[in-house]
């Protein structure tokens, strides 16, 4: 309200406006932005698989691609050591194959801090694979944070499902899951 107490100077300035009001903004065209000022872009999609059956056959251990983590934990649990070892063996025997590990978190907390936590899970899986002979050039670990929940619920069951790292493959021809 304090501006209402401004000196009469301002009022005097404006009183002389007459039929042609002037001020610091007088006569300015309102064209700072046009209604069509935003161009819509559609993001490209990654698709296609074409991976060998041993990676996708449900009977193969290599079709198991997920490693689950406890709440606020970032180490690979014993029950997942066999799955990780099988994938390490595949990467050792198939040096032309590449893997993307995506770490995930449950929905609680900030987008970006969860992204960093998911990275720790992906890094833990990557480290295990490297210790078992996979090569650095074969593996990229990244995080999806809390952005791609596998279970959409808001309870402990959903959170458990979402504290996870997934392993994706890409074959020598460049086709695959990422």
């Amino acid at each position: 309200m304090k501006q209402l107490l401004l000196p009469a100077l301002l009022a005097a300035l404006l009183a002389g406006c007459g039929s042609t009001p002037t001020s610091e903004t007088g006569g300015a065209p309102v064209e700072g932005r046009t209604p069509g000022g935003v161009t819509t872009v559609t993001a490209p999609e990654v698709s296609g698989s074409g991976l060998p059956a041993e990676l996708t056959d449900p009977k193969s251990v290599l079709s198991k691609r997920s490693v689950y983590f406890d709440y606020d934990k970032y180490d690979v649990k014993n029950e997942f050591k066999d799955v990780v070892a099988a994938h390490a063996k595949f990467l050792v025997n198939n040096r032309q194959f590449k893997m993307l590990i995506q770490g995930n978190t449950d929905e609680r907390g900030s987008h970006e801090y969860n992204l960093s936590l998911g990275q720790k899970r992906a890094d833990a899986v990557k480290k295990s694979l490297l210790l078992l002979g996979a090569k650095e050039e074969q593996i990229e670990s990244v995080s999806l944070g809390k952005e791609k929940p596998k279970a959409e619920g808001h309870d402990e069951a959903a959170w458990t499902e979402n504290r996870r790292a997934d392993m994706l493959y890409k074959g020598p021809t460049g086709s695959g899951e990422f």
Partner: protein
Amino acid sequence: MRPLIRPFLALVALAASCLAQAQLSIEITGAGANRIPVAIADFGGEAGTSRALTSVIRADLERSGLFRLVDTTGAALTETSPVDYGDWRGKGADALAAGNLTATADGRLEARFRLYDINKQAALAGAAYVTSASQLRAAGHRIADVIYEKLTGEKGIFSTRIAYVVKQRGRYELQIADVDGHNAQAALVSKEPIISPTWSPDGSRIAYVSFENKKPIIFVHSLATGRRQVVANFKGSNSAPAWSPDGRKLAVVLTKDGNSQIYTINADGSGLQRLAVSSGIDTEPRYSSDGGSIFFTSDRGGSPQVYRMSANGGDVQRLTFEGSYNVTPRPSPDGKTLAFITRREGRFQLAVMDLASRQVQILTDSHKDESPTFSPNGRMILIATEIGGRGVLSAVSSDGRIKQRLSVAAGDVREPAWGPFSQ
């Protein structure tokens, strides 16, 4: 790697469909304690357009929570009419705006108005805007901005825009809308998540993190042309972009060397520099408006807390100590206040810290607050929160009194970013 920079086609049909469904609606849920009584007389001129213009001005002022609209029924005034100060004082008005809208010779519209101080019996401001029928709302916002500034002493934000992400049926849209929720337009449509949008200081570009390539990559997107540039796509995750106040570079978070760490990079993707080295996670960087320091989240002390360092990476200082989860620091435009998210008894709530006294105040009673963003005048903080299981945006004044809720009819709204003053 596939070429990420390539021409993209504007999908007009998609944009049109999003316009129909994604209109933000705003509900006022709290107002300021001492609202200024202001009378906005119906603008003179052609009835339909004049009424539309007047209602934009009234809605802006009312939504701000700082004004109470005085009934002007029966008052026929234009910017040249003599003002009966005694009459308006009797109606309880402290200020009066009157104006008219006329067609110009070249088919455009001219909106003229005057603002009067009823108690001082004097004109406070006056302006004329040349506009068009399609830009009538913009003219109304400009007029509301002038009235707001003259009566409160701070700049109005009615001509600003906000960005946010709508998740709807498995699709993500980065939308840009006027701050009153009108003119929502999609800048990016994707099947994969989009997070952390942030406006360039001049309002022409938005930096964000897109997962369209199965990993987080930082883009800078020019709104008018739709041109997108990959700014950071290093091995690992690329996230949390923050513009330097001069718009020349971004602070970013990369995992190419291990844990999440803060780097700076030029807005064209050149000149990568590591800013700081820590043993834990450093993320969510945000420049102070003077560019001298960077606020960020780090778990170097065992739990995520807010820190500040100088913009060249030195002189690190911890700012939050209460509780085991304090994240997403956002300094106010005047540098005096810090907004952040704190976890108290399992609830994530918006808090502000007075940086001089370090006193913390919790501003909301919600449980899932995220991603605070200040209005450019520092008066309001926009957050994402959850009400009835749906993602909505909520605007809270920095004293916690004024509250507004912004939602879309179907879908979740999240990741708000308040744009700069329009130029």
